[in-house]
């Protein structure tokens, strides 16, 4: 129980801090620390993502960043894909799925390195009169 809470808090902090999605952390956390198999870890991660995404959407919507019509359309149109993805995941063996997930982690790591190096080529110089308004907007978890 403590392990699951720790995975949630740690995953959440990193998601908020770095703009990486929660699921990318929940799945390996559940497999490595709680000993879930890959299928159960992925399924459980999906449900765990829902409250995180709701809270994030609520905040972003208050800033007016959410294009509601497109979001709704994307969400509704994802249904067929989501079914196909889950059916495919369950057709694969745990080992194949785990190796594929490991490859995904490496891709996400590469994306993170690239966006980090692009966003901040040099550690932030002492900017003149840097105010709260002038500071960059937070990156959001994906």
């Amino acid at each position, binding site marked *: 129980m403590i392990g699951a809470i720790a995975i949630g808090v740690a995953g959440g902090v990193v998601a908020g*801090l770095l703009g990486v999605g929660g699921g990318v952390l929940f799945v390996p956390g559940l497999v490595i620390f709680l000993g879930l198999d890959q299928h159960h870890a992925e399924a459980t991660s999906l449900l765990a993502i829902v409250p995180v995404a709701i809270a994030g959407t609520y905040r972003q919507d208050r800033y007016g960043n959410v294009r509601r019509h497109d979001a709704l359309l994307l969400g509704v149109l994802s249904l067929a894909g989501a079914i196909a993805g889950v059916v495919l995941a369950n057709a694969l063996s745990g080992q194949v799925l785990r190796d594929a997930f490991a490859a995904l982690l*490496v891709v996400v*790591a590469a994306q993170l390195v690239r966006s980090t190096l692009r966003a901040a080529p040099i550690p932030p110089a002492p900017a003149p009169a840097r105010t709260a308004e002038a500071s960059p907007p937070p990156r959001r978890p994906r």
Partner: protein
Amino acid sequence: MIGTLAGLFSGLFGVGGGSVIVPLLVLWLAYDERSATATSLAAIVFIAAFAAAVQGAYGNVDVRDAALVGVPAVGGVLAGTWLQQRIPTRTIALLFALVLVASAVELVLR
């Protein structure tokens, strides 16, 4: 198209699908990064819920673990975004990329 791809990706890997949706919104629909991230987050609510429901039909969802992970994670995200405004994240991001690669190795060796 983006919705279907994102759903497939999410259902297959048990993640939200933001790493697919955001670049596609930027590339194909000319979104700016911030709207793309925010809109993707809203779409993920539906995508993850759909995929979780289908996984539930397979009996794979552990609701208790999901609640124990997901609810504290909301607090974690708030703490993370608060911290992000106050500390330089560059080094942390690069270290975390290493953690991801290490997790990948651990998963493969399992």
